[in-house]
């Protein structure tokens, strides 16, 4: 075991292998965070739509969730990267193939974001649906519109309830970001493999990558637990309600 390999000058790029690791970590974080923003926004909208009483709003959200949840992420990654440019209108396809900046990166972000949105949607939906129906009745009975009931009653409670499952979704997105290596994003796992191939220090390379993943997981878990405590409702135990 010899971790000094990371201080050696790298095969290319001018820095050391440690720089490769750091660069990989940076791309892993960038892909995960940008994808999470998409997943959170799109997933929230879809999740709320799935709880509305109107079938015309529910149906498209349900179809979205079923489609994105039942196709493997790797397949979706290839569809974004290889298939989409071929089947969109010609001008846009040409742009994607020739002039789009960092196509691997952005396709990975979009793919991971829209994929995870289906999972976020399910969490948001079940969070809202775990709130007793009486809460909606109470809101409506005092003259709030359905939109106001969502805004003031269901969403504030629903989001508190889903913080723990959303935390694990974020950790999932962060692990899933390694699938981006299949379309050429040099994120952390890709860099670890690359270092192993150039230096034959496989054990050291994979160990460092694993440790970084574990550390980031720890930081996110602790951060989210702090958030959870901060927004905790006094006197309110669990999501089961009464």
């Amino acid at each position, binding site marked *: 075991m010899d971790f000094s390999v990371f201080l050696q000058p790298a095969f290319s790029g001018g820095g050391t292998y440690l720089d490769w690791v750091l660069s990989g970590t940076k791309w892993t974080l960038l892909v995960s965070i940008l994808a999470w923003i998409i997943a959170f926004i799109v997933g929230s909208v879809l999740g709320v739509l799935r709880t509305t009483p109107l079938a015309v709003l529910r149906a498209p959200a349900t179809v979205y969730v079923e489609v994105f949840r039942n196709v493997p992420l790797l397949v979706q990654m290839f569809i974004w990267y290889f298939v989409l440019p071929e089947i969109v209108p010609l001008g846009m396809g040409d742009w994607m193939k020739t002039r789009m900046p960092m196509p691997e990166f952005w396709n990975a972000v979009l793919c991971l974001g829209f994929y995870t949105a289906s999972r976020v949607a399910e969490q948001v939906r079940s969070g809202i649906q775990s709130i*007793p129906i*009486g*809460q909606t*009745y*109470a*809101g*409506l*009975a*005092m*003259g*709030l*519109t359905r939109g*106001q009931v969502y805004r*003031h*009653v269901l969403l*504030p*409670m629903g989001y*508190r309830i889903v913080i723990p499952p959303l935390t694990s979704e974020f950790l999932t997105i962060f692990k899933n970001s390694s699938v981006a290596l299949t379309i050429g994003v040099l994120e952390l796992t890709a860099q670890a493999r690359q270092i192993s191939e150039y230096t034959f220090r496989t054990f050291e390379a994979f160990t460092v990558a694993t440790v970084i993943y574990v550390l980031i997981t720890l930081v996110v878990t602790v951060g989210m637990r702090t958030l959870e405590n901060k927004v905790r*409702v*006094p*006197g*309110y*135990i669990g999501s089961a*309600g*009464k």
Partner: protein
Amino acid sequence: MIEIRNVSKWYGEFQVLANCTTRVSKGEVVVVCGPSGSGKSTLIKCVNGLEPFQQGDVVVDGISVSAKDTNLPKLRARIGMVFQNFELFPHMSVIDNITLAQIKVLGRSREDAIEKAHALLKRVGLTEQAPKYPGQLSGGQQQRVAIARGLAMDPIAMLFDEPTSALDPEMINEVLDVMVELAQEGMTMMVVTHEMGFARKVAHRVIFMDRGEIVEDAVKEDFFGKPRSERAQHFLSKILHH
């Protein structure tokens, strides 16, 4: 004030309300009782349109609940409602629970709403609890806050859906006392309850329901004196003997 005309409702094949007709005049206190599953809670939720119904109509202060062009939120804002499980919003303090609809629905200023809330909290004997959260209050206190929340809208009538049946026995009276006071002040009230002591004390009329039908609809003296139906007699003997 409240007119229920030939209301029928089905859940699929199952009929929950069968041709119900009754009325509550201004200043009148009407108690609705009956065995569980008799449709009394459903009936009271039809009054402000929380439960849709397939036949008949409910007219409140000259406005039809089922008409397509009725502004339901506006109508509901004029009728207070108190629920079996209180349905205070757990993520809001007591004061915010009482001011929410005043501000969002009636458009009152925050100062006016808070002033009103404090006056009502004083009236239900909970001045100290204003900054607390519902989860920090006892059931009886929560239900009194819920009554204050309904009254804050200056309603033309109050609906009570089994307001004491989720309470521990020692807390029932603190809630009933508030309701008795309200009745004596001339509030129009429709109350689903098994508390026959309350009915004897302040009700003008008592309605007995069974299997979705209004079996008995009589002035209080007649109801307790000589209920005409066998089912009502049977029910009364059951709940009065303990």
